């Protein structure tokens, strides 16, 4: 049986947030009242969020779920009220044909839904899927909750506590006098809560811009956070603006970093203190990935007293990356010196992983797609 201390450490290593205070966690684990510790939940107000589309989702503290709405260019924070701590070891969640079953619950067929993202509530161990019912422009946003016994239910968004922040879209100087809405849309590729900020990575469907936005939470209308341009330098020679595909907060020697994978594949570390507006932020390349390794999703976890990163990508298999050298790695800046960066191994058995999140301290919950297109929700022991 795991000690609370061990659990706390593992929870702190979770993928999507790290600022869960130890005191809150201890209370959650021991089932004590959380009264008085809900300062973030208290910032939410009752109402019905107008979520137009579903993109990535991520958990913050206190069971708060962040939902990205790319069509509405808005991020919602909703109180799931899913605060009952899982007792003992986390139960695995395994649902065959999750695509077909999700479609069945929504009264449709699997070719008419899209599962956009997966997030596990670290308090309860329940999984949440961000789903679009319908694949056309009228697709409806649905958040599906998956219990440990595989029970599927829809998160009712009527009269819930929530807050939202609209993302400033690129100004359209021609909007005036031109009919219709701009076809520009900012896709949100990943987000994570870290130390009072929601960090959001986006990719435009027009310019190859790279913006990482750091938005203070609780949301304030007046402060939509700062947009930070992220660059990538290939071996010290060529520098490009490089959109971040996926990232995970990570502590390196007590300093907050994000470990990020660019769309152009290199894995970099970026000190969070650098994420300031107007700063020329260039990630420090710690590993270079080969072709077909377009990153999809990433988590951090601890096993055998060592920290690891696990990254799903478009190639077959999943990458397990050591982090021991992260603090000392100066970064790959010079191809001639032959530096290879941090080491990683590819776990070939994990095939077709589209999404992943940590499920308790020893499992990963993955959305796996087979060659035939069937999707399954599978709990796998962390490698």
């Amino acid at each position, binding site marked *: 049986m795991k000690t609370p201390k061990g659990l706390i450490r593992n929870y702190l290593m979770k993928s999507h947030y790290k600022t869960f205070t130890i005191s809150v966690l201890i209370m959650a684990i021991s089932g004590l009242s959380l009264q008085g510790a809900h300062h973030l939940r208290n910032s939410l107000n009752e109402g019905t969020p107008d979520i137009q589309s579903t993109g990535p989702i991520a958990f913050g503290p206190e069971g708060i779920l962040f939902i990205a709405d790319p069509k509405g260019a808005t991020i919602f924070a909703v109180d799931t009220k899913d605060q009952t701590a899982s007792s003992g070891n986390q139960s695995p969640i395994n649902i065959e044909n999750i695509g077909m*079953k999700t479609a*069945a619950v929504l009264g449709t*067929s699997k070719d008419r839904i899209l599962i956009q993202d997966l997030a596990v509530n670290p308090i309860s161990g329940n999984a949440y899927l961000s789903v679009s019912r319908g694949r056309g422009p009228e697709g409806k946003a649905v958040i599906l909750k998956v219990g440990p016994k595989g029970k599927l239910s829809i998160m009712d968004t009527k009269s819930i506590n929530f807050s939202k922040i609209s993302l400033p879209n690129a100004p359209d100087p021609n909007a005036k006098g031109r009919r219709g809405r701009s076809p520009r849309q900012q*896709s949100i590729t990943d987000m994570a809560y870290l130390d009072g900020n929601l960090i959001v990575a986006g990719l435009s*469907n027009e*310019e190859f811009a790279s913006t990482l936005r750091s938005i203070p939470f609780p949301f304030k209308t007046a402060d939509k956070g700062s947009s930070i341009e992220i660059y990538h330098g290939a071996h010290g020679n060529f520098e490009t603006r490089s959109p971040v595909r996926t990232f995970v907060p990570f502590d390196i020697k007590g300093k907050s970093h994000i470990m990020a994978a660019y769309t152009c594949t290199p894995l970099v570390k970026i000190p969070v203190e650098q994420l300031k507006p107007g700063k020329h932020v260039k990630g420090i390349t710690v590993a270079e990935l080969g072709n*077909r390794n377009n990153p999809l999703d990433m988590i951090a976890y601890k096993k055998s007293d060592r920290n690891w990163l696990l990254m799903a990508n478009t190639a077959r298999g999943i990458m397990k990356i050591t982090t021991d050298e992260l603090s000392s790695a100066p970064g790959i800046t010079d191809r001639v010196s032959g530096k290879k960066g941090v080491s990683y191994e590819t776990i070939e058995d994990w095939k077709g992983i589209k999404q992943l999140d940590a499920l308790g301290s020893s499992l990963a919950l993955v959305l796996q797609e087979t060659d035939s297109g069937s999707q399954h929700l599978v709990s796998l022991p962390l490698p």
Partner: protein
Amino acid sequence: MSRLWIKILTPTTINSIVVGFLFIAPVYSGYPDSSTWIVLENKNSENPVFLVKNALEEVSQDKTEPPTPPENLSQFLQIKVHTGSELVPFDLPSIIGNYRMMNRDLEFRPTFPMERGLTYRATFHQYKFRKFLKIPTDEKMSAIVSGDFTIPRENRIPSTLVSAIFPTSDAMPENLLKFYIHFSAPMNRGNVYSKIHLLNQEGKPVLYPFLEIGEELWDPFVKRLTVFFDPGRIKRELQPRLEFGLPLQAGKQFTLVIDPDWLDAQNLPLKEGFKKPFKVISSDFTSPDPAKWLVTPPRQESRDPLRVVFEEPLDHALINRLISVATHTGEGVEGSLSIHAGETLLKFLPETHWKKGSYKLIIDKDLEDLAGNSVGRPFEVDIFNQVEKQVELKFMEIPFDIR
């Protein structure tokens, strides 16, 4: 209200649905006089309703008031989707919605509208329901009342087309960054990259040329898809490019192919596929330079278009969004843009006649050429041989006069 069909299930039909039903209760066939049946009302609307008619009917014969129904009515009536095309798992969940008793009828309102072309099987466990409510049951009563309801597909023929692919030029730089694929009607999202192929001069597919991201870069109307080339294959010195090379090679012919079986938002395939052959020219590492543009102002009191000729083809979507016309005091001139000649010619047609005076073309420096070099910054900056311009302002202006 229309009664679609009623079926008293025989053991054989039950077997064919779900084996588990056999264990619920004894099943009796040959009870043709059942007064309980299922109907579907408002089937084509946003608010369809399943009704188990007379779920409590027979009670009325010996009781004045029917018994109070249980709160959890979902255990007695389930509606499941049957696609008919594949094996349905034994544990396929029911569709979600709200249950309630309406007098003697059991009502189910699905949360979402029903879909055309799908069959919904409603199963009412009447034996279980009556047992639960301690209503007398007839020995010959069927355990289950069931009905299949299909919302027919509209009789439509495929009509959606690829209406344009940008860049329209037939010569692309080796480091081309993206295509825009425009459709004549909204499309289905999901698995788009399997429908797009890049063929080399020999007609063989180029492997993994594009950035495949699950979010898929559609516009809000799902009528335009942006397809980026894998930036790891374009940026110099990166592992993917070193291993596999550029997806396009100068001096060679390539063809972008769109499969006809790509489904539109009505779940119909395209009317036909699309092929865009093009030749590849050398890489472009330099930023567009508005100082080299040729601006031809129209005459005053005319409604002729302002013509701007670029020194190289520019990004179609960004021209539309990032170039505008204003008076010299900065007041926007309303009008419409059109883009011609392989994205090298812009025509701006004002809404009203041109007045004599000074104007300016305003260019956002994020405007890119076909290789992602923006006015403010090349796609790749050579750090040892800095060619990046020092850009302080976000906009550039080109003044012109209307005489």
